[in-house]
């Protein structure tokens, strides 16, 4: 009995130690997993907030960089005037332009 009981106790204690270690490991892993999940949720929320912020900034950028805003600012803040009231647009067929170019070229040649 004396010779056979000791190894059994040691074996049992060892087994107990292994089981306990495994349980602790599982619990530890689970805690870590839960922590990572929480972190992931937090990061997802932050990501969404950043995406929304980016969209908001894009909208702001479009608003301040719109042509009418720049023109308004140029007129009101810088006192510039828009010289479009007498713009005249004349369309000419390409053939006519070619003839004109040819005429000019001949004159210079």
């Amino acid at each position: 009995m004396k010779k056979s009981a000791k190894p059994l106790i040691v074996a049992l204690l060892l087994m107990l130690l292994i089981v306990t270690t495994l349980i602790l490991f599982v619990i530890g892993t689970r805690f870590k997993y839960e922590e990572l999940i929480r972190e992931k949720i937090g990061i997802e929320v932050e990501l969404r907030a950043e995406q929304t912020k980016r969209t908001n900034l894009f909208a702001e950028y479009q608003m301040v960089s719109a042509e009418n805003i720049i023109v308004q600012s140029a007129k009101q803040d810088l006192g510039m005037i828009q010289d479009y009231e007498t713009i005249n647009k004349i369309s000419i067929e390409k053939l006519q332009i070619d003839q004109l170019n040819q005429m000019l070229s001949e004159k210079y040649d």
Partner: protein
Amino acid sequence: MINSRSLIVVILVILFFIGLTVKLVDIQIIKSEELKYYAKRQQTKLETVPAERGLIYDRNGVLLVHNRNDVTIYIDLRMLPVKKREDVANKFSKIFGKSKKYYLALLKQSGKTICIEKKAPQEKARLISELKMNAVVITEDPTCIYQYGSLASHVLGYVNNEYVGVNGIAKTFEDELDGENGARLVERNALGDLITISEEETIQPVTGNNIVLTIDKTFQSILEEELRDGLKKYKGLTATGIIMDPNNGEILALANLDDYDPNLYWKFSDFQRRNRAVTDTYEPGSTFKAITLAALLNEKACYETEVLNVENGTYKFRNTFIRDTYPNDRLTVKEVIEESSNIGIAKLIQRLSDENFYKYVRDFGFGNYTSITLPGEVKGTLINPGEWSKLTKTFMSFGYGLAVTPIQLTAAFSSLINGGTLYKPQLVKKQINWLGKVVYENEPVEIRKVISRETSQRIKNILKSAVENGTGKSADSELISVGGKTGTSKIAKDGGYATGKYNSSFIGFFPADNPQMVCLVLIDSPELEKYGSKVAAPIFKNITDRIVQSNPGYFFKNENHRHKKTEENQISEVKIIYSENHVDKNDEAFVLTSNTEITNGRMPDLRGKTLKEALFILNEIGMKYNIKGNGIVNSQSIKPGEQIVHNKVCVLNCSQSEINGANVY
């Protein structure tokens, strides 16, 4: 002895483990389902993950509506001891910048849970959550942001407290914009802190589709600004304006004034929030004469040069007097439209049967929904010919006895000048999902062919003439050719007409030869003037001019557009634009940038111009020339402003020099 004791210990340990195993088996296997159920019920909760709402863009990708991830913060008073209230109030006061008193007053309220901050920015909410206060509950409460305030408010609609679309596109496309909410199984501890989330039982939310409208933000701004100015200038009650592409039914701008700011929708009345362009009707008056004449021309019941007796402005028809604003003895059919003669059109319509005229009016879309994707549309009033009195057709010919919505009239008018096809008015160009994939793209919807291409061309010419020579003169633009028709109609009230109250309107199109836009301007009850020619037409002109100036390429890219009245205008910039059919559109010949006058028979100032520019001008006016030197023109032998004498030669002295860039602003 030692062995016996060891054996006892071993046996006890084994028994203990056996007991433990039995209990474990009981918990984990036998009562597993029951206990799992109770545990789940206590600790876990199925939470909704709200989907992000889709965005709304204009046709050029300008973001009009977007979202902000705001939060609402609640305090569970049961979990907040009275002595800690001051501390909480202090912390909130520091973060949100409101007084401590304000928060203390809120915390003194009765009830289990109180809302302490509504629609707070997420950054501030994060600061609150970092303080780890047990009683604080933070929930997502997103906000829709209308970037340009009241701009296009009647088209966009608004989102209410429950984040549900009300009015406009927000309502019609609620399902598409809203997306699909997700869900997740969340495990929380007794304090409400998150323990974990079951990944297997998580359904990801699907973000709503983004909507690209046919609206052009620039045109919309111009329309609203000009309507606002016009309303103020003529002291009108309300104004409505629509700009439509007649070739596909796309609405480029739609506005009603008064309007509202969708960000603060609760501050405005139902009237201000109503999209009167689709929900309200009016008698169109003389603008309807174009519709009547189209029916007559299409039926070959008259022709443009036919002369009519218009009775010097007063005509007794079936015991009722019909009067013209501008009395005339005789007018051609074309002049009937130019002068807006009620008598002329009333006489002409007698050539069509009631049924035939009704058929045309109906075919143009009156008395029916346009099926525009906006809520609350009405179909107007168009009486069945069986119920017509002896005067109905006659009065209908000049726009009385029927009620139309502004959108109906704009769509019908578009069909008049686009070759005769009635298109469904469209507001949505496409829908894009959150992955950027186009899920739906609108194509033009042809409803029916109402009149022939030839009739359409004839009507277009008549309407162009109505602006050049008729009542629509004040709508004429120096920048682009315009066609259109004025309208002045009494306002129906209590079964009769309101005294001294008129609807002044103008509906026109440009460029006249190849219409790209139809624009309706309707001013309700202007106090200073009543006629469409005096009120709505000048507003139309301002809108047209600004639109052309803002985006000339829009009109000139598809046609070889020749500017009218060239000789009358001072030229400061001559831009050579030619047809896309001939050359690449970017292949511009050259641009003259300094002031040059080509006045009637007068010599232009060529000094400071490049030789090429000067020669272009001289060739334009047909003058012979002689060149000395090269580069920039320093002087000219015929002085600027001098009368041009035939066959006289102009000597240009040139030298090389640098041209500084011209200031545009």
